[in-house]
């Protein structure tokens, strides 16, 4: 049996392990070890197992991930989400569907200090869903809107997905972060347009909210200046090389902590609880990365990425069609596997193909994140939908899934736009760096 055949068998076995409910991380480590032992020797496989995991868990570059996760949790506990929502609510509330539109922009703003889609959806869901209920918003609109707008958390920097992608492909984290801003803003506008059109068609979906005076609006904006400052320090510092990604995450976490202390939102208990929660999330992600490296080593040993690359290179189909096939793989895969393991599993295999076809790695990173955005809201995995279900317990799951469709359409349109107009993605990285 050739090593490539063993590699393909390895991919099949790892999928079988996923299906039979073995934890994703451990499936990859186990199959990686077995495959490595098969291709080289059992002794080598045994020695690779702890060595690879240890090397990954002592890698400075991935230490940025827990730091940014910590920043998101401290930002949440410092009440930044509440103030962002209040500001958006004061300004956009009075228009038709305004509360839902305000929630979308509040999600976008919270995404600027938090790198996780689930954390963004959970934070805004707790604030926006009761408010929308109070003003008679339809449950389908309110829950679908927050579940979908939560995805802005991984598109607008900082983003855990960009960090993982950058770590795996050795691309500049700063460039990746900044490349998500324009698509993130466009997506927020498309999502808002979806809300507006829904409310135009069916006014009872999103009645107008109460009007605020100019003074109230200005005051609400003043109260979120600290969020803007935090974003500028962290992302600006990273872009201009003042911070490494790990330092930027640490500085952001410290900044959020200081804001929480100054505003008296933080207590010792909240601080410890949020540190523990950040640790648990980081542990889940980093365990997958460490275990996937064993599987990745096996894939490289079995020459899967190079074999696949040369196979695709030999196909007489246009490059854009290959790209659409790759995107389709992520779309279908994203419906069944959580975004993070899917990216960790596929990037080492598919990334060389994308690069060999001459596509820009930064642009591809944005496309991956956009496709991931679809994965986190589509059934059956749709993690954001389950997060919202946990908040709006009285709303049936089917209703939330129904509610995401207009927003899914907004993500699809944004993705198509980014595919056909790559300059929209690359304009900021080219301008700033």
């Amino acid at each position, binding site marked *: 049996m050739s090593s490539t055949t063993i590699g393909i068998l390895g991919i099949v076995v790892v999928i079988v*392990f*996923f*299906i*039979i*409910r*073995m*934890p*994703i*991380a*451990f499936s990859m*480590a*186990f199959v990686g*070890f077995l495959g490595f032992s098969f291709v080289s020797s059992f002794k080598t496989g*045994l*020695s690779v*197992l*702890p*060595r690879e*995991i*240890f090397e990954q*868990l*002592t*890698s*400075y570059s*991935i*230490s940025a991930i*827990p*730091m940014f996760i*910590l920043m998101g949790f401290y930002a949440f506990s410092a009440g930044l989400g509440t103030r962002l929502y209040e500001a958006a609510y004061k300004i956009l509330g009075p228009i038709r569907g305004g509360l839902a539109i305000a929630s979308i922009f509040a999600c976008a703003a919270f995404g600027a200090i938090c790198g996780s889609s689930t954390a963004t959806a959970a934070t805004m869901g707790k604030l926006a869903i009761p408010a929308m209920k109070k003003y008679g918003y339809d449950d389908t609109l309110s829950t679908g809107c927050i579940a979908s707008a939560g995805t802005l958390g991984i598109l607008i920097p900082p983003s855990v997905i960009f960090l993982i992608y950058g770590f795996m492909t050795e691309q500049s984290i700063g460039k990746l972060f900044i490349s998500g801003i324009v698509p993130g803003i466009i997506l927020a506008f498309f999502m808002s347009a979806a809300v507006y059109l829904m409310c135009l068609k069916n006014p009872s979906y999103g009645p107008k909210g109460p009007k605020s005076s100019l003074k109230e609006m200005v005051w609400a904006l003043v109260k979120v200046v600290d969020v803007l400052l935090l974003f500028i320090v962290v992302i600006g510092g990273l872009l201009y090389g*003042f*911070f490494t990604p*790990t*330092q930027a*995450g*640490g*500085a952001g*976490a*410290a900044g959020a902590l200081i804001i929480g202390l100054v505003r008296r939102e933080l207590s010792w208990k909240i601080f*410890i609880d949020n*540190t*523990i929660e*950040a*640790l*648990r*999330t*980081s*542990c*889940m992600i*980093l*365990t*997958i990365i*460490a275990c996937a490296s064993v599987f990745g080593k096996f894939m490289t040993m079995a020459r899967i990425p190079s074999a696949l690359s040369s196979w695709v290179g030999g196909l007489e189909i246009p490059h854009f069609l290959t790209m659409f096939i790759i995107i389709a793989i992520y779309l279908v895969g994203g419906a*069944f*596997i*959580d975004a*993070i*393991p899917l990216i960790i599993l596929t990037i080492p295999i598919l990334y060389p193909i994308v690069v060999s076809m001459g596509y820009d790695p930064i642009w591809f990173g944005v496309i991956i994140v956009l496709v991931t955005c679809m994965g986190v809201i589509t059934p*059956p*995995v749709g993690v954001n939908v389950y997060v919202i279900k946990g908040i709006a317990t009285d709303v049936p799951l089917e209703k939330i899934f129904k509610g995401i469709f207009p927003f899914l359409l907004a993500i699809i349109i944004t993705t198509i736009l980014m595919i056909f107009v790559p300059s929209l993605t690359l304009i900021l990285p080219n301008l700033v760096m």
Partner: protein
Amino acid sequence: MEKFERFTKGLSRGFEWLGVIGMLAMFVANLVDVIGAKVFKWPLPGAIEILSFALVVAIAPAIAYGLFLGTHLRIDFIVDKFPRILRVALRPFVSLMCTILFILISWKGFEYAYSLQISGEKGGSSHIPFSPFAYILALSCIPVILFFILETLKSLKAKR
């Protein structure tokens, strides 16, 4: 069985607290380095290595308690559609596979840590030895192994 579960859970919780210390150590070391480098032009010596070592102290001990909380990602919805008999048969198999995996990581991890201890490998700038952190990784597998043994026993009991 209950006693064993309580012990494993308690041990895992204890290891998670070690992880919290590692996480806070990372945060503090990072902060000291940033303030030192940017304000006083005196970065923390060996900061990169300190952070890297603190990362393993944070993550590895937290794996076991994450299993109790169910934070480690798995795909549930496909197995849920399987016939009951198949689901019941698969549970101990999956737990057993995971037990074997972590026994191997722990066993070879201790060997690897020992080899690092013998060779006296140290960080280039911090001069901190590598071996204690490799030992932490190997040790952290113990509550994970216990968790999966517990899972295997529970699923076999459920089978009966």
